[in-house]
């Protein structure tokens, strides 16, 4: 009985977290946009505009659900659900703290790649079902972009997996800190199994993973359709892209999934490259900083802090760089990122065979 309760409780908690995170992130996004442009951002609703996003979501929830006449009803209605569910399921295999993970599966990383790509299907359904040329253009762009960028994401993950030798995200996180069962070597030379901290992170176990992480970060930025890769939404060209025809709670769900996706890829990058829930503080002689800052609560804190910093960087980039042109987007993916990812893949193999043995 209690097991069923846990199975119900966990998704509810994660959903609640996604909703709260979205509210917070939209507020942060608007504030960052304001500050970058020497404005103040929302200031009127609540102190410093803190209640602005709550007011927004209340408005969206009250709105009428409009079904334009010429839409493909079934696709139009199901699309937001599919888009959201695809991202939502992704949270099921990402660890928050040592052994604190909704589903500890051996194929976690593979699973996450598989379900998150369903997102593209939902976007195509939304664009096609809307029966609106802008929506369709937006969704076609989205598909072209997401299918292309799936490849560098996959390659960068393979490069990382060759180092970690497991697809289990829980184990990947374990093997980057003091709780590791295997020996960890900083840059392949210095044994830091008992030192932990930032030195034990994957990007420092094999330094070429820094490049891989940059590729992963840029490619996932494109996967979430965030600026500078936001040509599927491109509000200045396509009104709203694939979500032009959506309003009310359906739009809220599309929005929710966009922000959930941001946090999911940030968290995934953190788990695979940046040590997951492991502390950045190493043990220095008698100062057992790493031992003191490892645990359930600390794990959740570090996951949160690292992921939020990455989300912050995503926003910072959004308000700095202008949008890519469609051909530049494809150029960057196929001619630059994929070749570099392949080189890194080879480097990972060599590193594993020659250095990590």
């Amino acid at each position: 009985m209690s097991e069923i309760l846990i199975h119900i409780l966990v998704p509810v908690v994660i959903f609640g977290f996604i909703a709260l995170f979205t509210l917070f992130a939209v507020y942060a996004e608007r504030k960052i946009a304001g500050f970058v442009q020497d404005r103040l951002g929302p200031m009127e609703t609540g102190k410093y505009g803190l209640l602005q996003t709550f007011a927004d979501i209340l408005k969206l929830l009250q709105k009428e659900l409009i079904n334009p006449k010429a839409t493909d009803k079934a696709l139009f209605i199901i699309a937001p659900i599919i888009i959201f569910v695809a991202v939502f399921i992704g949270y099921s295999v990402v660890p928050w703290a040592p052994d604190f993970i909704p589903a500890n599966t051996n194929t976690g990383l593979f699973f996450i790649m598989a379900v998150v790509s369903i997102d593209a299907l939902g976007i195509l359904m939304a664009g096609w079902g809307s029966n609106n040329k802008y929506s369709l253009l937006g969704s076609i762009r989205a598909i072209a972009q997401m299918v292309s960028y799936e490849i560098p994401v996959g390659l960068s993950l393979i490069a990382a997996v060759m180092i970690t030798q497991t697809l289990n995200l829980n184990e990947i996180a374990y093997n980057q800190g003091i709780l590791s069962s295997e020996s960890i070597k900083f840059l392949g030379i210095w044994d830091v199994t008992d030192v932990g901290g930032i030195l034990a992170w994957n990007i420092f176990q094999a330094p070429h993973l820094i490049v891989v992480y940059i590729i992963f970060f840029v490619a996932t930025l494109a996967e979430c359709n965030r600026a500078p890769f936001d040509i599927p939404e491109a509000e200045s060209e396509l009104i709203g892209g694939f979500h032009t025809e959506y309003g009310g709670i359906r739009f809220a769900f599309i929005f929710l999934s966009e922000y959930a996706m941001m946090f999911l890829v940030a968290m995934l990058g953190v788990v695979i490259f940046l040590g997951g829930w492991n502390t950045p503080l190493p043990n220095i002689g008698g100062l057992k900083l790493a031992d003191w800052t490892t645990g359930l609560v600390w794990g959740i804190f570090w996951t949160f802090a690292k992921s939020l910093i990455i989300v912050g960087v995503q926003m910072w980039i959004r308000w700095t760089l202008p949008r890519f042109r469609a051909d530049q987007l494809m150029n960057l993916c196929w001619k630059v990122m994929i070749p570099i990812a392949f080189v890194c893949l080879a480097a990972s193999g060599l590193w594993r065979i020659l250095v990590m043995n």
Partner: protein
Amino acid sequence: MILKTTIHGFATAVKGLLLTVKHLFGAKKSRESRDIRQADYFEKQEGVTTVQFPHEKMPIPEVARYQLDVEIDDCIVCDLCAKACPVDCITIEAIKSPEAIGKTSDGSVKRLYAAQFDIDMAKCMYCGLCTVVCPTECITMTNQYDRSTTKLTDLIYDFGEMTDEEIMKRKEEWTSFQADKEAAKKK
């Protein structure tokens, strides 16, 4: 070639990112309002520029040219302002008077009553032509600009001071004067 453009792209992106982060942290304080005649006016680029309008207002000169105001006691109801107005936002209805009513502050003789003197500020485009043509300078622009209302008709400013009975009385006066004149002609 493509590698070169990519590296260049990354380098410029980093440059842009550094610029925005500078502004992000520069937003901790507001930008002070400075005199444009200062030599380093354009040097100071940091800080929030927003003026949170209803709570804080920018200083404006006393002689600023915003909403119109009419000193109806000085008005001779010549209708010039209504004729000069490019958007026809001034509506004037005059009633003639049998004899001079009085004098304005600059000595012009008033011979007309202003039964209606409405200015629709929603239509007004603040060109100031009416103030130029006014012979008695009774219509002026003020430094008042903040008149937000929820009803559009609130922006029709009624400067006429006459009550309905007064208007009726003056109209009757004029018609009886006309009738007397007609009768005198017939004799």
